[in-house]
């Protein structure tokens, strides 16, 4: 399964490098939830999150050649996102401290309960990193089921993914088992 995933990512990356817009769109579709999960966990605003997203997209595009066969695409995306978020936070803190050191302390992003926030953030990032390793159809299925803010019902999911309503339950169970296996194999712990 991992080799299938590598092939898919590798083929996508290759087509992106050739200037294929559809391949880039699909790649962005895959990485976006992970990037924004990290931004959200670090309590960035919408504008700040898109600022980070822009930088990440740029770095991703610039380094695609090196990522073509590594199978480390999502790990790389997670790492550069965290790096860009920290860089943005450092810059924002510097500006606040320059304006008023007391105000800077008040607006520091240090969470009220560091352990809780850190744990929640870690869990969500672990999940995002694992979920993109699922086969594309399973990934799309779980996204529709759990991530879509419009909360599509089974009828809608059935239409969207071209599967009978009756198979949604069993498919969900199978996808969750696959996700658990990935988490176990990668030694991810939720």
């Amino acid at each position: 399964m991992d080799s299938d995933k590598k092939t898919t990512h590798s083929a996508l990356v290759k087509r992106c490098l050739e200037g294929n817009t559809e391949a880039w769109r699909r790649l962005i579709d895959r990485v976006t939830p992970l990037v924004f999960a990290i931004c959200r966990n670090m309590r960035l605003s919408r504008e700040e999150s898109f600022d980070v997203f822009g930088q990440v997209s740029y770095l991703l595009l610039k380094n695609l050649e090196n990522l073509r066969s590594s199978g480390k695409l999502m790990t790389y995306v997670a790492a550069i996102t965290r790096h860009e978020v920290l860089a943005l936070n450092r810059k924002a803190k510097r500006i606040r401290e320059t304006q008023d050191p007391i105000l800077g302390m008040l607006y520091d992003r240090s969470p009220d309960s560091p352990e809780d926030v850190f744990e929640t953030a870690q869990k969500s990032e672990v999940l995002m990193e694992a979920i993109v390793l699922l086969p594309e159809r399973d990934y799309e299925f779980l996204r529709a089921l759990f991530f879509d803010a419009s909360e599509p019902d089974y009828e809608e999911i059935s239409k969207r993914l071209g599967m009978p309503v009756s198979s949604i339950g069993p498919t969900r169970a199978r996808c969750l088992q696959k996700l658990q296996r990935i988490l176990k194999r990668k030694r991810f712990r939720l």
Partner: protein
Amino acid sequence: MEKNKEMIDVLIDYIRKKLPAKKQGQVSRLIKDNPELGDLHELLKVLVSEGRQAEAPGLIETAQKMSGRLFEDYKKHLADDIPGRALTVYDSSVFPLPDGVRSALVDSRRMKFKSDDIVIEVSLYPLSIDLYELIGQITGLPEGGKGRVILKSDKSKYTVDTDQFHLFRFNYLPAREYTMIVEYEGNRVAHIDMTL
């Protein structure tokens, strides 16, 4: 599998606190007593509580628009290989507006372009329906040297020197397509295509 499917529904309802109080307690005990169920519960808990927030309405579409511009710039770079071609990494105009708000009412636009270590940030303020003030800053250039920004369209050409912090400003720019050239000490360091 069927039993498993039913249990998933029960667990999701448990996480969403939709079960009657007595059943919530029963499920809670089941999770404690059964490690396998406990693992499934942990996974579903993260999926249910974090999942919906991961893709706020319009997020993917906006991200696609923003990264789509970056990729269009990249394709131009592949086609013409112009040195210093900067890619669009941020454009506030892609954000969806709240219902009923016309784009003409939004009073500013921020854009950001990147070419290797050089970043050009631009803010646009409308002076009238088709005239803008453009204020920008270049980062990544060595301090002190002479920077120059040239804005060219098919009808006009404007040139300004940057100040010591590499800030620059253009006033009364008509809305149209431009090419922005950034020079440092007489050498071209960035090439940007933009539409006002």
